[in-house]
């Protein structure tokens, strides 16, 4: 979506904060951050973030558009909600991080081979196919996401875990053929198509 990216750069030339407020889920909260850093100290993967949340918020206000959107920091969010529970200003930080990650993906700015981005995308595709997640196919697609050779290696490494799940009937081989899903699949897909259209239209409009 480089075209959309160009349109957004053009439209919000002077204010990345405004762009985030208009286009990122819960983005209107960003300006409320008071830079206390409780979020950074509360994050279970805090040391894996190049820019912890409060830094991301300050970078947004400072107009560091590319540094923020092409960062892999927000993809380190485990959705533990510690930051939300502790933020003294009540910012929905988890949701803002998810929103920024999604917006970066929409604009095509995610760093190459970001594993959580790949997994998140596979999860979304998997659930939309039949309305419910097919755990077996999701697991396999994840092992093979970096090509066949590495996929075989990962599968071997994970073999014992898979066997344990099979033996305890917490994984089912027949899920590879069809598997669980919603009955009204066509209705489900019509709903999702419409939801995507409405959201895409809203964001397109914001870039024009």
């Amino acid at each position: 979506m480089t075209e959309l990216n160009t349109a957004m750069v053009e439209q919000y030339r002077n204010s990345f904060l405004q762009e985030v407020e208009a286009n990122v889920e819960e983005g209107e909260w960003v300006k409320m951050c008071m830079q206390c850093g409780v979020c950074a100290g509360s994050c279970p993967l805090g040391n894996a973030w190049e820019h912890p949340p409060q830094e991301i918020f300050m970078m947004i206000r400072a107009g560091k558009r590319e540094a923020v959107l092409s960062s892999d920091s927000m993809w380190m969010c485990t959705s533990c909600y510690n930051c939300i529970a502790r933020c003294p200003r009540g910012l929905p930080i988890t949701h803002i991080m998810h929103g920024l990650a999604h917006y970066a993906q929409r604009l095509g700015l995610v760093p190459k081979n970001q594993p959580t981005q790949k997994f998140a995308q596979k999860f979304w595709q998997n659930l939309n196919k039949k309305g419910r997640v097919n755990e077996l196919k999701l697991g396999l697609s994840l092992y093979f996401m970096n090509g066949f050779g590495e996929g075989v290696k990962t599968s071997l490494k994970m073999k014992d875990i898979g066997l344990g799940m099979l033996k305890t009937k917490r994984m089912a081989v027949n899920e590879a053929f069809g598997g669980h899903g919603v009955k009204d699949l066509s209705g489900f897909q019509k709903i999702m198509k419409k939801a995507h259209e409405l959201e895409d239209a809203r964001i397109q409009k914001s870039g024009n």
Partner: protein
Amino acid sequence: MAKKEYSFYPGCSSQQGASSSNMQKSVETMCEELDVKINQIPDWNCCAASIGYGGGGELPRLTLSARNIALSEQHNTGQDIVATCAACWLATREAAERFHEDDGLMAETNQALAEAGLKLRNETPIRHMVEVLIEDIGYETIGGKVQRPLEGLKIAGYVGCQTNRPFGIAGESFENPMYLDKLVETLGADPVQNYDKKVQCCGGALAFSEPEKSQDMIKTIIESAYDSSADLIVTPCPVCQMNVEIYQDQINQRHNTKFKMPVVYYSQLMDVAFGRSAKDSALDQQVIKAGKLEEIANK
């Protein structure tokens, strides 16, 4: 006691042959014992959990939950929605709150739902099974059902993240929730006092995409249980249960540890204490056998 009825949202991992089918089995047994009727939301779909945000923007993601709530309001009218999966509960309740706050989003989701003839009224409370146990049934009734007290078992109550934050259970603290310990005590077992990893993150979905980072966190959860001489860990969350149970061999290989700590659901403890068999309690679906709990179940 009058039969209580709820509109039940099991979620993908609770289906037959899925990773928390053991939770589903044990919850069904628990509900039989407590005279609780759970009516599945007909044709429910996935909630997108907390990892669907990559491809799923706000409206498509929340619309998944809107469809479930709308189906529940249509078919299980007047019944509270109850979920056993932390992520299902969280996603559904978050969606309901967002639609309450944002009229534009509510209008758009209804526009999407209309494509399949559905309508969201958004008047239904979205609850966790643990809320039902504590608020609607109560420790006293639960204690009264105990036929086989879990005597001699030391249990680390691992609450995890999403059952605890951002909503949690009313009246409990985010940092040190006590309800799981109280439940363990009610069942006649011995809760680990001051289990310091009770609300530590297990990595959630990142256990798949960032395995080493996640396993480092999981290691601390298990280590702390051993340090407190726990016989087993109990949790309400299907992701916590799976992550903490199934990667122990890999952690052992990487760190030269000898972990073999069973991780069970609260519902499995209740089933055994209520006098049900190991099979009814889904103990046969443990990857790491809960030996001492099985012994009690086989008495």
